[in-house]
């Protein structure tokens, strides 16, 4: 039998069993589309996690006090109060630290804020004008604390988005912090939460005022220093510059006994990277399972159809078909179904990738690898389970096949 005629016979076989052909095609279609979409959603959420970490500022460094050593007993990290406004001044020096673009000292404590309508307990951060730049934050309304207000111990406050809405306060309103009256001069834009910290629930006031009225302590001492590198590429050199400067000003020669720690958001980024990897593995397993389930569906339809067609195989053999003719016919049928199902599956996935982000707030990023793997596996399952049982049936004695029920 010629190849062309076999092809014709195969197509006629498919059209003759329309429902079965449609079901098989659908099985492959959904398997392929599910895998592509699942991996697409996984890729997109990994991207989104990465970009929200980038938004936190991967060029942000935090200097915190190290442990104290008193009489040979080492205290816990942060037990020392070793950072001072002199360190801040040193780090601001563009000569010594060219890769550091903003330096903001921070003291913080918890205080009760009272507005005309409610009261809230929140974190109060005392800082300088550079805080906004060092934290990569922005204002949704009003202005930030100025250097002049820091010098004058001004009673002004900038509220986080959550705090402002909780207090029902807008720019120009009066609130009290621990009983002292403050004027609201600005509201920060929302920046979401990182882990357990809500970055929108806070109040920012001049560092001098904070030392007076919230945290107490020596006016020269600060709890943390926030640094921002000029770009994420220079974060390494900014780190080294800060380390060098602080070792120098603290008169420390042995780096192991440094009384401060410098951490960066890139530490967070690497943690996030491992979380993302886990997420990707999880989604890939889900995708693999859906592919397996789709494959078993295709396998079932193919096996059932071959059993059902054993009589047809017997008849064709009686009429003079050789096992090779039959094998080719089933190969063409299975290949066509797999191909059509695969192509439609990819098309459906592309359509979903286009529609889903527009209809629901879910991002889908379709990449080549899952498309190739999904189509290859679906086509392989279709071919193997379409051809193998048919090949076995084709080897039966014609009369045995003809009498099969």
């Amino acid at each position: 039998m010629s190849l062309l005629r076999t092809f014709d016979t195969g197509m006629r076989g498919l059209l003759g069993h329309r429902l079965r052909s449609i079901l098989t095609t659908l099985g492959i279609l959904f398997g392929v589309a599910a895998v592509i979409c699942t991996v697409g959603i996984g890729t997109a959420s990994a991207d989104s996690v990465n970009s929200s970490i980038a938004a936190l500022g991967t060029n942000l460094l935090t200097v915190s006090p190290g442990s104290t050593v008193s009489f040979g007993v080492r205290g816990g990290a942060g037990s020392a109060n070793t950072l001072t406004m002199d360190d801040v001044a040193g780090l601001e020096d563009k000569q010594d630290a060219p890769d550091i673009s903003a330096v903001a000292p921070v003291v913080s404590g918890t205080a009760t804020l009272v507005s005309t309508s409610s009261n809230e307990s929140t974190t109060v951060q005392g800082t300088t004008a550079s805080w906004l730049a060092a934290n990569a934050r922005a204002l949704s309304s009003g202005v930030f604390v100025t250097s002049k207000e820091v010098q004058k111990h001004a009673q002004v406050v900038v509220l986080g988005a959550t705090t402002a809405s909780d207090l029902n306060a807008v720019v120009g309103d009066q609130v009290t912090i621990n009983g002292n009256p403050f004027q609201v001069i600005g509201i920060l834009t929302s920046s979401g939460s990182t882990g357990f910290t809500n970055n929108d629930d806070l109040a920012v006031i001049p560092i001098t005022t904070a030392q007076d009225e919230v945290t107490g302590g020596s006016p020269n001492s600060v709890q943390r220093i926030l640094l921002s590198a000029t770009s994420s590429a220079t974060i390494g050199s900014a780190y080294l510059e800060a380390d060098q400067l602080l070792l120098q000003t603290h008169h420390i020669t042995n780096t192991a006994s440094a009384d401060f720690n410098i951490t960066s958001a890139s530490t967070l980024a690497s943690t996030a990277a491992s979380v993302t990897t886990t997420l990707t593995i999880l989604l890939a397993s889900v995708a693999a399972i859906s592919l397996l389930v789709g494959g078993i569906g295709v396998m079932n339809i193919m096996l059932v159809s071959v059993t059902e067609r054993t009589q047809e195989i017997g008849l064709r053999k009686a009429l003079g078909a050789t096992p090779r003719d039959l094998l080719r016919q089933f190969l063409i049928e299975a290949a066509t179904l797999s191909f059509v199902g695969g192509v439609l599956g990819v098309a459906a996935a592309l359509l979903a990738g286009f529609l889903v982000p527009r209809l629901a707030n879910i991002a889908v990023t379709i990449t080549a690898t899952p498309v190739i793997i999904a189509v290859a596996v679906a086509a392989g399952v279709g071919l193997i389970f379409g051809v193998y049982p048919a090949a076995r049936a084709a080897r039966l004695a014609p009369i045995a096949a003809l009498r099969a029920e």
Partner: protein
Amino acid sequence: MATEIIRLVDVTKIYGDGDATVRAVDGVSLLVHEGDFIAVMGPSGSGKSTLMHILGCLDVPTSGEYRFAGEDVARMNERELASIRNRRIGFVFQQFHLLSSMSAWRNVELPLLYRTAHERKQTALNALAQVGLSGRVQHRPNQLSGGQQQRVAIARALVTDPTMILADEPTGNLDSRASREVLDILTGLNKSGHTIVLITHDPIVASVAERVVEMADGHLRERVAA
């Protein structure tokens, strides 16, 4: 003397093994010439179906010699057997065995797909005309009566112009009128030179044949006309 089509010499077919062996066909010898119309009669279980499968090259004997048109079937491989079935034998089954998804003429065309054939559609239409179904060529099997389905099956058997038509209980699923039509067609085909082997349990059906042989318990016996 007419050409010899079938020569069976001491053919035996055994199924199963050990104590469960069944000698479905036991030492059968038979000679059929071109143009003969022979009926093989016997009750169910007599081994006549097994004999038919051997005659039709659908099954091979356990022992004995089978020559079809002078060729030794026992020595043929699967491809050669397929070729013999395709070129030399036309089958008519009790259950018709039409493919339900195809129209009448597509069913008749089937054997032509497994050989080199030109103008397959015209050949198939001619065969349908021969069995009086020119008006039903596009009908699916389920749109045809039992008698019409069996006529389509006969058209499929004769479309390749085979040496022999092998009919296994062709009237088994038909009423008496349809049976009559089918038997008339077979008689007509025999008159135009086709060798016909008819397998049946029904003496009335067998009576249309020129020669009747009887199967009982695997043995074959010539029936002498009364």
